[in-house]
C-alpha cells in the first residue's frame, strides 16, 4: 500500500544520483540551443523589429508634431503682423479721410465767407447808392417845397 520507501532498500531512493544527472544537463543544454533557434531568435527578431518600427513611428510623429507647432507659431505671427498692418492701414485711411474732410470743410467755409462778404459789399454799395439817390431826391423835394412855399420875391 503506502510504500514510503525513502532511501530504497535494495537500490534507488530519493537521493539516488547517477548518470541521469549529466545526461539531463546535456539534454537541457541541447534544449537551450533548440529553443534559441526555434523560439528566442525568431520571436526576438520580430518583436524587436516591431519595437523599432513603433519607436521610429513615434519619433517621426513627434518630429511632425513639432514641425506643425512651428508652422502654427509661424502662422500666428504672420496673422498678428497682418492684423497690425490692417489696423495701421485702416487708421491711416481714417486719418486721410479726416484730413480730406477738414480740407473740404475749410474750402467750403472760405467760399461761403467770400460770397457772404461779396454780398455784404454789394448790399453796402447799393445801400449807399440808394441813400445818395434818396438824399438827392429829398434835396430836390425840399427845394421844391421851399420854392412853393416861398414864392419868388
Amino acid at each position, binding site marked *: *500500500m*503506502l*510504500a*514510503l*520507501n*525513502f*532511501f*530504497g532498500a535494495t*537500490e*534507488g*531512493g*530519493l*537521493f*539516488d*544520483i*547517477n*548518470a*541521469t*544527472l*549529466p*545526461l*539531463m*544537463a546535456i*539534454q*537541457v*543544454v541541447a*534544449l*537551450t540551443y*533548440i*529553443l*534559441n533557434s*526555434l*523560439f*528566442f531568435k*525568431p*520571436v*526576438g527578431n*520580430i*518583436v524587436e*523589429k*516591431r519595437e523599432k*518600427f513603433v519607436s521610429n513611428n513615434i519619433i517621426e510623429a513627434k518630429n511632425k508634431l513639432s514641425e506643425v507647432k512651428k508652422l502654427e507659431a509661424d502662422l500666428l505671427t504672420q496673422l498678428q503682423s497682418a492684423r497690425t498692418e490692417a489696423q495701421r492701414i485702416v487708421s491711416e485711411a481714417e486719418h486721410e479721410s479726416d484730413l480730406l474732410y477738414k480740407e473740404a470743410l475749410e474750402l467750403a467755409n472760405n467760399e461761403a465767407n467770400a460770397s457772404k462778404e461779396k454780398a455784404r459789399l454789394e448790399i453796402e454799395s447799393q445801400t449807399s447808392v440808394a441813400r445818395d439817390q434818396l438824399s438827392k431826391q429829398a434835396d430836390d423835394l425840399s427845394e421844391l417845397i421851399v420854392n412853393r412855399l416861398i414864392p419868388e420875391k
Partner: protein
Amino acid sequence: MFFNSLLTNFAALEVGQHLYWQIGNIRLHGQVFLTSWILLGALLVFISLGTKKMENDPKGLQNLLEFLWDYIRDLARTQIGEKVYRDWMPFIGTLFLFVFVSNWGGALIPWRLIKLPSGELGAPTADINTTIALALLVSLSYFYAGLSNKGWRYFEYYVHPTPIMLPFKILEDFTKPLSLSFRLFGNILADELVVGVLVFLVPLILPIPVMFLGLFTSAIQALIFATLAAYYIGEAVEEHH
C-alpha cells in the same frame, strides 16, 4: 474488495523507486527521461506551431509566444542588466520553460494511469538528478559569464567589499547550487507527496484545493529558479567600482 483494490492502485505512493535503464555500465532513471521527452516534445510542438507563420501583426499562438518572450526578456534584463542580458536570455528562458513545463506537466497530467514495471511517471523536476543538473548548469553559467566578461578581474568579486568576505563568497559557490537544486526538488516532490497522500486518504474533492496550490507552487518555483539563475549571472557580470 474491488473498491479497495482500485483505491490501492490509484493511490499507492512509490517514493524513491525508479524505472532503471541500463546502458552498458551506466544506469538511468527512465521515468525522468520519458516524462521530460513527452513534455519537451509537447513544448517544442507548441512553439513550432506558434512560430510557423510569424507576422508583424501577431495572431493567436504567436501572441502568446511573444508575451512569453517579453516576460523572459524582462526577467533577464532586470536581473542581468542591459549590457549582457541578450547573451543569457535563451539560457534563462530555457530554464524557466523547462522547469515550468516539467512542474505543470507533472501536476496536470494524470501519469498514474500509465503503469510502469517499476517507479512511476511524474514531474522530471521531482528527481534530484534533474534539479542538480540544472543547478550545476547555472553555476557553470555564472562562472563562465563572469570570466568571459571580466576575465581574471571576476575574482575581485570574492574580495569585493573587504577580503573578509572571501570564505563566505567561496562558501556561496557551494550553497548556490545546493539551495537551487534542493528548493526545486523539495517543493515539487513535497507537492506530489501531499497530493498523493490526500488522494490516498480522501479521493474526492479534498485534494482539489491542494492541487491548485500545487499548480501555484509549480509556477512560482519555475519563476524563482529562473530569477535566481539570472540574478547569479547578473551578480557575476556586474562591475564593481
